[in-house]
């Protein structure tokens, strides 16, 4: 969630909560005050009525409307039972407006001219209700206005105050460890942000230093290991030429030579994996997948013929990716190598490309492991124990590096590795 959305939502929540609570309290107290006022007026009216009963008043069962806004009612009762003010709310029919209206009524049982009567005075609540509604409406308008102001203010506040923060953020976002540029964070007068920038710059230079030394270390290890291997291999090359050696001796040397080659390949593969991990392949060029597959298959030609495999290629469209050509080359080479060398004699090899998906299907021994297991390092089949078991690990690493989806399945006696570019 964005900072702007988050703070706006936060402010709105707080504002709504406060306005809601405040509104209720305001409404209640306003209502209470009006009620109190009406009550007071009714009591006052009652006292006035008792002191100066209106002349020409007919007392009996008839209800006589005296005047608006108050209605007076005097009903004879058998006896005075409750000589106290009783308040109640009633709906009375308004003949002028032709609808019921809410009235507040005060009742008092007393003796009027010696007769026990119940006097009711009702007062319309219309004006006070309207007042409450009006005040509530004004409050609502104010609340909406406040909310709009809050959002606007938040927007301005964020761009003004957090501007330098966002600038730094965009600089860091563009930061790539592989390009050797320094980062320049914009100056800011806010202490916390300038501190943040300082920390970021310090961190950046430390990461850069660590990365450079790691890169150097990898290069050095590679160099340090390859050099003695080169010495051993050159010595065995010379020994092979020694005419005093018999077949058994030559075979021993041959075995040393082969193992040196294996060690060297292992070293090279591990360095490649480490380099991909360290993002040391920043190159982005247009690479055409089908083109490289054709190139590789051409080079595999004799090997395919020797294994009596006829590759079936079905490219419905070319796939072009933006990537390091070297890595894509290695990935496709390893995939095809895997499909060819783990194939059976006169087996099948189908390479299909459709939309953005490359499928490589081949016959071979039944799988000895699960799909995911296949892509792990140093996993090899029992039959080919001398292989390094790194080929598919490298394929997986490269496809992960470029976020291609890779999967393995075994259906209809065909191993299938598919990559979605």
């Amino acid at each position, binding site marked *: 969630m964005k900072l702007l959305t988050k703070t706006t939502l936060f402010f709105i929540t707080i504002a709504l909560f406060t306005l809601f609570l405040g509104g209720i309290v305001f409404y209640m107290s306003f209502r209470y005050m009006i009620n109190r006022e009406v009550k007071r007026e009714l009591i006052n009216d009652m006292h006035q009525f008792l002191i100066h009963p209106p002349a020409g008043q007919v007392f009996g069962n008839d209800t006589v409307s005296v005047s608006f806004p108050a209605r007076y009612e005097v009903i004879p009762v058998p006896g005075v039972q409750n000589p106290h003010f009783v308040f109640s709310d009633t709906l009375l029919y308004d003949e002028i407006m032709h609808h019921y209206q809410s009235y507040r009524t005060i009742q008092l049982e007393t003796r009027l001219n010696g007769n026990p009567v119940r006097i009711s005075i009702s007062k319309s609540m219309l004006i006070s209700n309207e007042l409450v509604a009006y005040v509530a409406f004004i409050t609502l308008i104010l609340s909406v206005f406040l909310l709009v102001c809050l959002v606007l203010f938040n927007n301005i506040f964020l761009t003004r105050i957090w501007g330098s923060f966002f600038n730094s953020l965009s600089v860091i976002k563009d930061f790539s460890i592989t390009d050797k540029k320094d980062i320049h964070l914009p100056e800011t007068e806010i202490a916390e942000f300038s501190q943040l920038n300082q920390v970021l710059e310090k961190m950046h230079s430390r990461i850069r230093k660590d990365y450079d030394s790691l890169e150097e270390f990898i*290069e050095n290890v*590679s*160099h340090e290991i*390859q*050099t003695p*291997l*080169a*010495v*051993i*291999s*050159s*010595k065995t*090359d*010379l020994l*092979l*030429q020694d005419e005093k050696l018999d*077949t*058994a001796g*030559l*075979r021993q*040397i*041959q075995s040393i*030579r*082969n193992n*040196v*080659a*294996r060690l*060297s390949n292992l070293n*090279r593969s591990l360095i490649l994996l480490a380099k991909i991990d360290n993002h040391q392949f920043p190159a982005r060029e247009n690479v055409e997948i089908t083109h490289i597959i054709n190139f*590789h298959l051409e*080079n*595999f030609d*004799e*090997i395919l013929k*020797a294994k009596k495999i006829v590759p079936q290629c079905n490219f419905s469209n070319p796939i072009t990716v933006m990537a390091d050509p*070297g890595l894509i080359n290695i990935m496709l*080479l390893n995939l095809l*190598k895997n499909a060819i*060398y783990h194939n059976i004699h006169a087996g099948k090899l189908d390479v299909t490309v459709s939309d953005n998906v490359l499928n490589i299907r081949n016959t071979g021994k039944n799988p000895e492991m699960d799909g995911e297991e296949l892509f792990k390092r140093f996993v090899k089949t029992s039959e*080919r124990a*001398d*292989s390094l078991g790194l080929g598919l690990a490298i394929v997986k690493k490269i496809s992960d590096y470029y976020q291609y989806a890779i999967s393995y399945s075994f259906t209809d006696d065909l191993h299938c590795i598919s990559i979605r570019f």
Partner: protein
Amino acid sequence: MCKVVPMKILIVEDETELSESMASYLKSEGHVCEIAYACVPALEKIALYEYDVVLVDLNLPDGNGMQIIRELKDMKFAGGIIIISARDALDDRIKGLDTGADDYLVKPFHLAELNARVKSLMRRVLYKGDNQMVHHEMVIIPDERKVYVHEVLLDLTRKEFDMLMFMAANKDKVLSKEVLAEHVWGDYIDSADSFGFVYAHIKNLRRKLDQMGVGKYLKTVYGVGYKFTDA
């Protein structure tokens, strides 16, 4: 017999054992080799003497081998330059070739491969064009990738030609099947499969040579590989 042209080769490599092995193999081919173990002595040597081929390691104790290549280019060096490096980073390779090197070998390499590269470089750089190799009744023309026997064109596949060429360049040397496989198929061959594969190709090559009445120069060294000889 291939034309033996003794060349002066400078090897710039700080690893004594390796540079001596290289010198020893190249000397057995009839070349004259000198070794420099660092940048400074190498720069002194190229200033004083003429060389046909310079082999340069990139990681040297007192600097980068690229420095030597630049110096050679500045003095309009007419010979060939091969980089020998433990780094196989694509970047280094391109940078090296851009600076003016002619070839790039990644350590560890086979001495036979080095020898073949030196010979091919010699043909490319020193004797542009006229550079056929004559081996008794066989005439190999590398640029055209053709082999003539008694002036009749030998019908060879690309890989068979590569194999023959490689063996002819390393005449009288024992070449293991792995070396042959690696030279001819590079990354495409799987070491586990190379034995039968090289065997099949050698068999075909021999049959074709036999049919043309070429002498049995292609010898089997039991348990190891093959050897191309004079008789």
